[in-house]
């Protein structure tokens, strides 16, 4: 009797622990924050290291040479998720980091706002501004950037690859090229979302259909990777 009670108690504790771990693991995924940019920013995606460099004032331009200005939030879930996910710093450490730069003449204090709406409004009217907001926030007047995880390829091994169909008309006309896609992969390896970043739109449509069927190895969390799909009319 005593043994059964102990077993039940242990199972209950274990269940609570599992629920807690699942909840905690969900805590700070990329889903908790959305990267927004001024419409004049020409890129559609930004790598995690580039994003970190911009927000730590290590660079004032993006890879295409266009100006980039980081815009922070002063607190809240999106702010916490952004710091944890992309900068790897606590709010206090971030304040100290910028304090060290500002008081030694190496950078200016970046703009920060109290709410998603204020961030979106500032980003919309300021050339080169890049900010972050919660996923539910309105993105009117701003461009949403896809964040590309640089470790994606090595961390998320492709298990099942479905080849895209080459549209017959394009093949006959010898129209080819490379299509660039941003692929969102769940922790379980399923492709959850595919966005066309560049390339021929008809080839892109075919590539998106194929990539949606791809399966990746299990990962620690949701990942966004950039995928290039070549279309060669000679093969």
């Amino acid at each position: 009797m005593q043994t059964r009670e102990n077993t039940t108690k242990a199972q209950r504790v274990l269940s609570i622990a599992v629920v807690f771990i699942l909840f905690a693991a969900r805590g700070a995924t990329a889903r908790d924050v959305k990267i927004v940019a001024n419409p004049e920013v020409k890129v559609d995606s930004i790598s995690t290291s580039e994003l970190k460099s911009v927000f730590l004032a290590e660079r004032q331009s993006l890879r295409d040479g266009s100006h980039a200005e980081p815009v922070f939030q002063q607190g809240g879930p999106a702010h916490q998720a952004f710091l944890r996910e992309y900068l790897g710093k606590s709010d206090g450490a971030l304040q100290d980091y910028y304090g060290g730069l500002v008081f030694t003449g190496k950078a200016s204090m970046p703009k920060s706002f109290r709410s998603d709406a204020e961030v979106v409004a500032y980003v919309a009217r300021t050339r080169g501004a890049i900010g972050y907001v919660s996923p539910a926030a309105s993105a009117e007047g701003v461009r949403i950037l896809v964040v590309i995880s640089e470790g994606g390829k090595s961390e998320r091994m492709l298990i099942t690859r479905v080849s895209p169909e080459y549209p017959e008309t394009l093949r006959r006309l010898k129209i080819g090229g490379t299509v660039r896609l941003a692929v969102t992969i769940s922790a379980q390896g399923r492709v959850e979302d595919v966005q066309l970043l560049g390339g021929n739109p008809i080839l892109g449509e075919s590539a998106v259909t194929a990539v949606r069927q791809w399966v990746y190895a299990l990962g620690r969390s949701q990942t966004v990777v950039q995928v290039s799909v070549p279309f060669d009319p000679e093969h």
Partner: protein
Amino acid sequence: MKQRIVLVALVCFCTTGATLAQEFRIFDRRVQVHGFGSQGFVYTNDNNWLTMNTSQGSGAMTDMGLNMSSQITDKFRVGAQVYDRNLGQLEQYHPSLDWAVADYRFRPWLGLRGGKVKTILGLYNDTQDLDFLHTFALLPQSVYSTDLRESTIAHEGGDLYGDVALKRRLGTLSYTAYAGQRRDSQYGGYPYLLQVHGIALTSYGGLQYGGDLRWATPLNGLLVGASRLNEEITGRGTLTLGGTTGPYEEHSNTDWMNEFYGEYTAGKLKLSCEWRRYWRDQAIASGLFRAQTDVRGAYVSASYRVAKRFQFGSYYSRYTINEPLITFPGVFPSHGHIYDTAITGRFDVNRYVNFKIEQHFMAGYGVPGQYPSGFYAAQNQAGLEPDTRALVLKTSFRF
């Protein structure tokens, strides 16, 4: 009076928690204004420390800074900061231009800044005045001697700098190469020490150049690096001996500093260590005498944030000095050391104000008559005890 002003400012910050940082526009350009200040109190059991009468308890430890900066174009930024401090008999509220820079960043891997520039040397040389950044009330004095702040804090010249992201996720290399003029004030530790010998310096400085290379390693939070500084210093003034006053000059034959460091941050834990060697071969009194100074400093420190507003820290700091005064009749080679163990508690009232309490256990006192190391003969005329216990209370604010 000025201490009262700082205290009043602190009270204002504590009670309002206000962010007084200002931003306004000039010629359609945003101009930011930021400031900081700190007030300390030091009590020692015996020896007087850092030119204060600490054996009686002293609050002559105040500093403050105010800066303005503006981003002129996407890549071009200008700014300047005024700094003022009082540390016992040093500085005594003679404000100075701390830095004034024009900074142009061509690429992430190439930037150029010129003007009066804070010198990158080791982990914290350029941020040593910014009390709010550090767990400790006093940084390890073996490497960051606060009475010798002037000697390395800034140069009038230029820096080439940049960050290079290494391929294959090998981290980031940051470099700085600099050259310029060092210009000490007459109120620093070295001119103060020379006064005991009847020397009144009117100028002290010269060419300073060097570099720093640091690697943010692939292991998240681990930074390692090395710095080098060379200088050619000339000091001029007057020497009074036996009631006769004549001109005085000293200059470097050789003068350099090497530093190696590492820092590891993981969550609430921060570990740091540094090693510095300073070597100086100085021609004294227009070449009549020659002094060779070999100073070695090292420390290991750890701090941990136990709660949102509270952190603990401790360090062990080791300072040794060997200064033989060659061809100086009647003076023999001196050896000295200071081994300092410090324990600190820091409480953050809010983002802008903090309080610190720190206990030092020091063994040794360097060579007080020959080179500044915190303990001066002028404040310890009855001689020095071998050990010193020091309690430091400090509060600081920023906006």
